[in-house]
């Protein structure tokens, strides 16, 4: 990358393409142009938009050669998978083996289009007909606890053998290991592979190895492209490199039009990532009761029927933009619901930094809206920096060779992420009572009086980008920051950003009043609190 004076970083999503031009000026790489547009508009329109921006910022002596410079620039690109991979799940029980396998598949990036279980209320003929009509890329079968030889689990495999054509896609046996040979015998040679049982007993779930196996299968069977350029691979690589370089525990979430990616990266370079096939905005339509939940959370998006139309529109026209305040509120509430859904699967404890990516989170009209989606959707307990990948650079950087990712991240430095500030999120306590007292010390600034935050409150303290503050946090009885308390006073450092220091004692999950008027009043108060203290114009999130 550093061999050229200009490079174009492109993230091609299923609905929008985002591109940034970076150029070297005074021995520093800077982001000099950025454009985002619907993917369907095509490459030439994107090129035109970027060159138009370059004409404004480039040295006059380069004007005549801008087109050539752009044409010769390195292109660093990542993209979403061309099509979703579809799987059928056949298992003994809906609640045990069925739901575990389904969640593992969706977390590995598969779209589960058919689920058949022996307690689904259907008869044998209907189950067979459903499976025979299934148009899927892979078959996932499970059932039986470890050490047992459940005949029902074998029946599940036989059902698939009866409905699937020879050569009709790979079969993954994710049930009792004792049955693996018998299951393999039901299919043509080479069709079946086994994965460790994700439900070894009724009380324990261990979906990790199955998820890894399914992620590998996804790449083998569907994504016949260079996998390092897939956003689902590139984004986690970039977040992992950033965590290693910064020595931070980082949670990254990329909420796209169709899918969502969640990454947890440790300072030692360990990365755990999940691709949620229906985790994107369009997937909100598949969440049971989503319209009602979004209508309640948004406060100002209209009634349930209006929100139902909105989330269908997000599916039907994923590249379109909300024009009215009501539609924006509904879209952002849908993003919060989807974030909460992808965080539900596992608890991750406190992290140092949360990064939001994807147009809805990373490019809202106001940075406070990005902060609210991350705060409400993820509920990052503890003291956490929040930032957004506003220029969508992480994905393309993650598609570079291993040794170049760190170099790219270091080169872009200040332009890589837009910091929103630091959140202090606690849980516990009784509503209306004191939750925490926070003293903010900033060197060179007069001391502020301690800030008392009550349970259910959200307060924001102005702390601009680049500023640091030392915090002393005193928690009330029954309130915690997600870690064992060793002292009555907790000391932490907060970094500033476009929103500032957010002191959030609204609990996990956030409790909302039942009465509609009370709920809307509370939601408005939280929104106003975030907006009032943020400094519009001091940071640009676009």
């Amino acid at each position, binding site marked *: 990358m550093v061999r050229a004076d200009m490079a174009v970083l492109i993230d091609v999503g299923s609905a929008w393409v985002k591109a940034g031009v970076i150029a070297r000026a005074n021995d520093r790489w800077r982001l000099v142009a950025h454009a985002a547009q619907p993917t369907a508009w095509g490459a030439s329109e994107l090129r035109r938009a970027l060159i138009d921006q370059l004409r404004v910022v480039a040295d006059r002596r380069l004007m005549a050669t801008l087109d050539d410079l752009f044409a010769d620039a390195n292109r660093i690109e990542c993209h979403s998978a061309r099509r979703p991979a579809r799987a059928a799940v056949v298992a003994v029980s809906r609640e045990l083996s069925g739901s575990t396998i389904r969640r593992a598949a969706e977390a590995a990036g598969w779209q589960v289009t058919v689920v058949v279980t022996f307690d689904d209320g259907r008869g044998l003929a209907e189950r*067979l007909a459903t499976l*025979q009509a299934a148009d899927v890329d892979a078959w996932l079968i499970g059932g039986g606890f470890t050490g047992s030889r459940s005949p029902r689990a074998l029946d599940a495999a*036989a059902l698939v053998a*009866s409905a699937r054509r020879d050569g009709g896609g790979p079969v993954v046996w994710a049930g009792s290991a004792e049955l693996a040979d018998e299951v393999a015998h039901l299919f043509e040679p080479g069709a079946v592979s086994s994965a460790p049982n994700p439900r070894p007993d009724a009380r324990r779930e261990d979906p990790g190895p199955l998820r890894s196996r399914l992620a590998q299968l996804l790449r083998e069977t569907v994504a016949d492209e260079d996998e390092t350029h897939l956003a689902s691979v590139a984004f986690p690589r970039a977040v992992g490199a950033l965590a290693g370089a910064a020595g931070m525990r980082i949670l990254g979430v990329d909420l796209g039009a169709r899918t969502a990616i969640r990454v947890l990266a440790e300072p030692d370079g360990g990365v755990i990532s999940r691709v949620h096939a229906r985790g994107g905005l369009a997937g909100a339509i598949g969440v049971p009761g989503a319209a009602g939940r979004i209508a309640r959370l948004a406060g100002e998006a209209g009634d349930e029927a209006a929100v139902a139309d909105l989330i269908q529109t997000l599916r039907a*026209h994923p590249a379109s933009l909300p024009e009215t305040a009501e539609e924006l509120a509904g879209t952002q509430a849908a993003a919060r619901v989807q974030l909460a859904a992808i965080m539900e699967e596992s608890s991750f404890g406190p992290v140092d930094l949360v990064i939001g990516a994807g147009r809805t989170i990373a490019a809202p009209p106001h940075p406070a809206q990005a902060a609210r989606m991350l705060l409400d959707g993820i509920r990052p307990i503890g003291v956490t920096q929040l930032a957004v990948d506003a220029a969508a650079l992480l994905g393309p950087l993650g598609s570079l060779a291993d040794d170049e990712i760190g170099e790219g991240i270091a080169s872009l430095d200040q332009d890589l992420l837009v910091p929103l500030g630091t959140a202090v999120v606690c849980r516990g306590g009784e509503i209306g009572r004191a939750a925490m007292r926070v003293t903010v010390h900033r060197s060179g600034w007069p001391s502020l009086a301690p800030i008392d935050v009550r349970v259910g409150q959200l307060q924001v303290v102005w702390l601009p980008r680049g500023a640091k503050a030392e915090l002393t946090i005193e928690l009330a009885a029954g309130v915690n920051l997600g870690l064992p308390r060793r002292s009555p006073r907790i000391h932490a450092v907060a970094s500033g950003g476009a929103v500032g220091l957010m002191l959030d004692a609204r609990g996990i999950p956030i409790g909302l009043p039942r009465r509609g008027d009370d709920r809307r009043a509370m939601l408005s108060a939280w929104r106003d609190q975030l907006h009032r203290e943020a400094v519009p114009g001091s940071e640009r999130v676009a």
Partner: protein
Amino acid sequence: MSVVHRVRLPVGAAAMVEVGHRVEPAEVLATTRTPRGGMSIPVALPLRRSAADAEQFLAVRPGRTLDAGATLASDERGREVRVVEACLFLAYDRDDGSALVAPLGGSEPIVGHVRGEVVSVGAQAIEIRVAGALVAGIGGSGPAVHGELRVAVDEPGAELRAGAIDVGSTGHIVIGGSRASAETLTRARAMGVAGIVLGGVLDKELRDFEAAQARRRELAGVRGDLGVLLLEGFGKVGFDPGLFGWFRAHEGRLASLFGDLARLYVYDADAPPPRRALSVAGDRVIAHRRPHAGQGGTLVRVLDRLQASSSGVVARAGLVRFEDGHTDIVPLANLEATEPLAGD
């Protein structure tokens, strides 16, 4: 013009047509025999072996179809187990030495619901070339139906009222306007309307209607469902005026509507007005988001600078003169250009 329609075949289906065959919408393309409930057939006992030993003498693997009288298992001593009726072999029970089979029902027809020429016949699908135009929608509901097109509203933004559905609509595919209530959809089904094409519909009303159709099937076993195709958006969303004009020009033509696939084939028709994602000044456009969803107009000018809409979202935008006379600035991402038809 022509388009290719693909009819997926279930496992075990037998094709009844060959390449080059001309088919009508109601014609049977293939037949399939659907398995009924399962039953057990003793295997170990007639072979005089233990349940575990008998498994090795099975002649077929689970998933195989057996004709009536076919051998299910046989051993070297000449003992055999045969099935008395055609069935699907599902599984062998090692504990009691029996085979679970699903007897096959009578042949059921697989109807293509399109008129055209068969261009390929495979184990997985039959492809048919349809002489006509394809109109793709953004959503829909219901099974495949066919009938003649009948325009039931006066203008593209008008709501399809229950009163507009009369006996003359029976067996037709009705072209509605910006919305149809659940009451209208229910009346249409009751009057024997084959399908309805709409610019928009409220998601809640469509779901309510689908739920009523499902209950009707479960409780009364009644068929004759209504196919619904949605072209522009959810909510009260009008037709693209250009497309509405195209439907008017093709009123009376035979069409096949696939609600679940959101497709409509209109036979012997010219192509509908094509669309482009990126609009340029002078284009006839259709808007997709509130407050202009479903409204058509002309893109007067693409604005030089990024514009903020009332939501605060900043994007490239254009000045649109809508057909009701008002003008507004609309993000280009929310517009689709519709090409004028010859003679427009």
